[in-house]
């Protein structure tokens, strides 16, 4: 008899939400996490009294999370206190001037209108179009399985309105933004969101242009740090009997006759189970933890063809003053074309960017308790390729971080360099070491059109029986709500197929 009904590998959002939901189904669940905390990229660590978020810095499009907590018999906002962020973000130009986008659609139209009157009016058109898309797709696409063509047909049958948005799959993010806004400065302030899918504006799919609108449906920061979301799933899961082991690295998925039967840990311990749920990068899961010898040739070809998503560098800064910022999120990104050039010239060529393209998160603006009194936390995300040409991240990282902070001090956060009390840096290589994410990938696999829905590794494995996938590298992709949706989808499929 198997030791457990289900073993879940990894306690990221996808894994821990799925584990809690499976415990709710009355299954005996064991979660194995190689690090010492839950949440993976959506986690928080403490250093010298400062609470730093590892990666994710806000949550939006919260419907899938609300649904997951509802299925657990509770409410998201009852389990986690959400602090609304308004303005949504502040765009900081190189001369220090700023454009702040408020939560309200009217306020945003006014801000855009000041930059370009016609574009201010266009904002409403973009908002109307994507509001409709949100309504049509959120249930049909984000929280429904997309394992095969039958699932896709069911999606369309349930909600034929989604067909209207198919043209967004044949156009780029940049084209959509340019279609609505003619002013280059307006376009510039919306050039960053393409990287939320890990691609530059001209390569990201058009439907990603939903994000500049969806942020206006509410963006939130959980009081106590991003870890509060996976912690809530952990708390509920454990109250339902779910077991969780930290510092338990899985080295192998035990497979016999193309069926998953448990796992082997790094220390050699074998634990058996009726089902295995993976929350780790799908490419690594199939090619390394399962092994090519267990895969039919078509799966091997498919798996090898995926590219892992982009990587980044995080600078965790504790400072002893109130940074002169105006929003929870601030952006220091260049115009659309510059971001495309950065992708080809620097990112793809293994170069550390010369300019300070980044996202500055200021969580203590929302929750002052995350730092000692009078102090603040800044989590700064910079662009950075995993492989550097002729350089090593371990040798370069402090120099790069200090340069970044010096540059930001000149135009974006005056005097920051004189107020830094703590500086921790996580390079793409560190992300790989700490979270075992290949290439330091921040969204699992590249979130491209040919790697979406039925073309992304399936939630219910097509070649290994008893194996289910959650997390950024399965449908519906990366991001806090999407990965929780993946946990929900896997648990629903298990309920359906594994009585």
């Amino acid at each position: 008899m198997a030791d457990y009904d289900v073993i879940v590998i990894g306690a990221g959002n996808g894994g821990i939400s799925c584990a809690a939901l499976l415990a709710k189904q009355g299954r005996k669940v064991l979660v194995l996490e190689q690090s010492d905390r839950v949440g993976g990229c959506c986690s928080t660590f403490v250093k010298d009294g400062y609470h730093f978020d590892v990666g994710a810095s806000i949550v939006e499009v919260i419907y899938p999370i609300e649904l997951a907590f509802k299925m657990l018999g509770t409410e998201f906002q009852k389990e986690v206190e959400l602090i609304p962020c308004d303005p949504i973000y502040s765009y900081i130009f190189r001369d220090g001037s700023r454009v702040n986008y408020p939560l309200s659609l009217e306020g945003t139209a006014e801000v855009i209108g000041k930059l370009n009157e016609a574009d201010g009016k266009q904002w409403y058109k973009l908002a109307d179009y994507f509001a409709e898309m949100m309504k049509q797709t959120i249930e049909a696409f984000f929280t429904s399985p997309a394992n095969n063509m039958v699932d896709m047909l069911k999606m369309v049958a349930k909600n034929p309105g989604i067909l209207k948005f198919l043209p967004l799959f044949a156009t780029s993010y940049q084209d959509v933004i340019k279609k609505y806004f003619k002013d280059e400065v307006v376009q510039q302030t919306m050039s960053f969101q393409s990287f939320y899918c890990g691609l530059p504006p001209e390569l990201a799919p058009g439907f990603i242009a939903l994000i500049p609108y969806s942020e206006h449906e509410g963006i939130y920061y959980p009081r106590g740090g991003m870890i509060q979301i996976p912690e809530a799933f952990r708390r509920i899961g454990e109250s339902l009997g779910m077991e969780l082991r930290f510092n338990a690295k899985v080295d192998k998925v035990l497979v016999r006759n193309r069926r998953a039967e448990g796992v082997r840990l790094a220390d050699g311990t074998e634990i058996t189970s009726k089902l295995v749920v993976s929350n780790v990068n799908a490419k690594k899961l199939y090619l390394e933890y399962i092994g090519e010898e267990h895969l039919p040739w078509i799966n091997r070809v498919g798996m090898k063809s995926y590219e892992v998503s982009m990587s980044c560098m995080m600078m965790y800064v504790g400072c002893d003053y109130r940074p002169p910022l105006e929003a929870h999120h601030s952006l220091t990104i260049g115009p659309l074309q510059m971001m495309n050039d950065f992708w080809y010239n620097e990112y793809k060529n293994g170069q550390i960017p010369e300019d300070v393209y980044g996202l500055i998160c200021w969580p203590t603006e929302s929750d002052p308790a995350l730092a000692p009194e009078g102090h603040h936390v800044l989590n700064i995300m910079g662009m950075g390729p995993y492989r550097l040409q002729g350089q090593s991240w371990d040798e370069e990282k402090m120099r790069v971080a200090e340069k970044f902070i010096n540059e930001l001090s000149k135009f974006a956060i005056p005097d920051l360099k004189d107020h830094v009390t703590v500086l921790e840096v996580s390079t793409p290589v560190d992300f790989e070491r700490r979270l075992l994410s290949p290439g330091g990938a921040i969204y699992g696999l590249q979130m491209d059109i040919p790697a979406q829905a039925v073309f992304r590794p399936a939630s219910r494995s097509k070649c290994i029986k008893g194996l289910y996938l959650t997390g950024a590298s399965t449908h519906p992709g990366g991001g806090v709500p999407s990965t929780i949706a993946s946990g929900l989808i896997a648990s629903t499929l298990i309920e359906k197929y594994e009585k």
Partner: protein
Amino acid sequence: MAAVKKGEGKGKGRIGSKLKMVVLLALMAAIAARYATLDASKKRFIKHILKQVPYMPARYFA
């Protein structure tokens, strides 16, 4: 029933397949002409997608 002369059906078939070929070539020429008018950025987007298309059948089974 009208009698079909020997070879007549074959001739029609040949014309049909020639027509299909012409339509296909015209379609390809139209696509190529349209592609040539696109700006460099759109071409890069299309190439980026097309590069992955051959893997999509295998990905479907992944």
